[in-house]
């Protein structure tokens, strides 16, 4: 059987898988009955509905003809990797990672790291441009978020501050 819509096929399969897993998870809690709903009752219904809808979407993707086969297309690994990576690195540097003995490095270091890594997600990376941008963002964020809004951040590395 040929897949008529690649996008819907994968969406449907993913939905179904999630629904089944969610419903299965619900059964590990007390389900109860309608009059006495346990913590698993509503999640079970929702999970089963998602699985059914997912199956319907998958079926439709196999049966209903589309003009171009609705391909998923190329996955943009580079931006995906660097944007998510920049975000993760920001979290690690800001809060530290006790698991590997990394102390919190604070907001300023985290901003520089995030800007450089995120900059790599674009087509043309320029060290100088990223350095300028990072400096601007670091000063701006410090003034706006720390001085003006008084949000609680570790600003400098713990071993300095």
């Amino acid at each position, binding site marked *: 059987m040929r897949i008529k819509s690649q996008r*819907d096929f*994968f*969406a449907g399969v*993913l*939905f179904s898988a*999630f*629904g089944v897993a*969610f419903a299965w*998870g619900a059964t590990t*809690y*007390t389900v109860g009955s*309608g*009059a*006495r*709903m*346990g*913590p*698993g009752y*509503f*999640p079970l219904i*929702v999970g089963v*509905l*998602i699985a059914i*809808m997912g199956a319907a*979407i998958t079926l439709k993707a196999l049966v209903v003809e589309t003009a171009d086969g609705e391909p*998923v297309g*190329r*996955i*943009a690994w580079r*931006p*995906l990797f660097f*944007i*998510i990576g*920049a*975000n*993760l690195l*920001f*979290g690690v540097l*800001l*809060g530290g990672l006790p698991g590997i003995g990394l102390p919190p490095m604070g907001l300023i270091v985290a*901003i520089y790291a*995030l*800007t450089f890594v*995120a*900059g790599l*997600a*674009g*087509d*043309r990376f320029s060290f100088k*441009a*990223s350095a300028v*941008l*990072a400096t601007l*963002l670091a000063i701006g*964020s410090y003034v706006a978020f720390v001085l003006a*809004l*008084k*949000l*609680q*951040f570790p600003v400098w590395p713990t071993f300095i501050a």
Partner: protein
Amino acid sequence: MDLISNLATGFGVAFTLQNLAYAFVGCLLGTLIGVLPGIGPVATIAMLLPATYALPPVSALIMLAGIYYGAQYGGSTTAILVNLPGESSSVVTVIDGYQMARRGRAGPALAAAGLGSFFAGCVGTIILAAFAPPLTELAFKFGPAEYFSLMVLGLIGAVVLASGSLLKAITMILLGLALGLVGTDVNSGVARYSFDIPELTDGIGFIAIAMGVFGYGEIIGNLSTPEESREVFTSKIKGLWPTKDDFKRMTPAVLRGTALGSALGILPGGGALLASFASYTMEKRSRLKPGEVPFGQGNIRGVAGPESANNAGAQTSFIPLLTLGIPPNPVMALMVGAMTIHNIQPGPQVMTANPELFWGLIASMWIGNLMLIVLNLPMIGIWIKLLSIPYKWLFPAIVLFCAIGVYSENNNTFDVWMVAIFGVVGYVFLKLKCEPAPLLLGFILGPMMEENLRRALLLSRGDWSVLVTRPISLGLIIAAALLLVIVLLPSVKAKREEAFVEE
């Protein structure tokens, strides 16, 4: 006249120097932060919420309302100038607003959004003042079954006007409901789907989902298109004020948008969102006048209509919050949080127990709208300067603001990990053409639906027919079913698809 005396009470409260100052500060801060790309009203309010803790309740709510309008206004500015919807209800503003900006007509687009919003805000305030009291009466007749049916209707309504496949939109709602259930079950105290992670027992952060799916997912999507085909700004901007022709075209769109927005805003499940989509669809279906720019290429009606509709909807969406105590959208959910911090339980009793708070808030909404137009139209030049920033400078900044925003939510890096996960999820949704807005609404309403269903079934001893034997509940269910049937009719279906075709 009750209405006039009530409004007079309200203006008496709002027109004190202190409260005017808070409204002003709220509007200014809201716009300043809301205009930053990637930070919509939800994130803005969440970030500024701590600033209001020390204020008296009325002033705090007035300032929050100011932040809300400011953020929303700032959000549409970002939508128009940077092609990034700061919030779900400016998704449609992006379509024509950004095209206008690209053609050097950012000024008129912003003015249309501002003036339309102001007019809609005035009408919305009057409607809110007029309809809140009778609806409060009705609210006392609402049981859990009615609340549940109301939420079903709201969610179905949101699906009907979402773009793309109906099946996928419904599934996205269900997915949102599922994600909303993560965390401690209020009734049994069981931590559901928390995988023994302590942070997950409080549930998944709304901000993490919103920023991951809308912020990161979009950025990755934008970066994956090559530089040439990516939208490039034109630097030339001719005139800030709409022309006479613009006014002639936008006025009916504003009126239609306001009417739609006021009516739909009352629905739970994202009235403002629904309203802006409905308004855009309506404008797009109406015949083009000779010489008018087609939709999707910078038609001013495509900005004025949805912007008025979402502001009117934003105004009237206070009605379900203030009368029924259920937040119709994410922003209102935050308002509930703010009210509880100040020891006010949202619900029908607010109006009788705290009349000066109730009417003062309503009056301050109008004042906030007025301040915004005074504050923003002369400052449009500053917003337009944002146009000259190229995307390669902008996207690292957006990533940073998203990361800072989620972190400051709980001062916890756990939310930073969550936003990374939802960034990947958001990109998957984008690739598979799954509209993420319904997911957010499901996420907000999930726990409330469960709770009301639980209560309804408890009262009926497990009999599901309670949803259709109580007249109000039956009416709401029938309305939801009708909506579904109508969109599935072949003729409507074709038109709906046509309305959302991207150009």
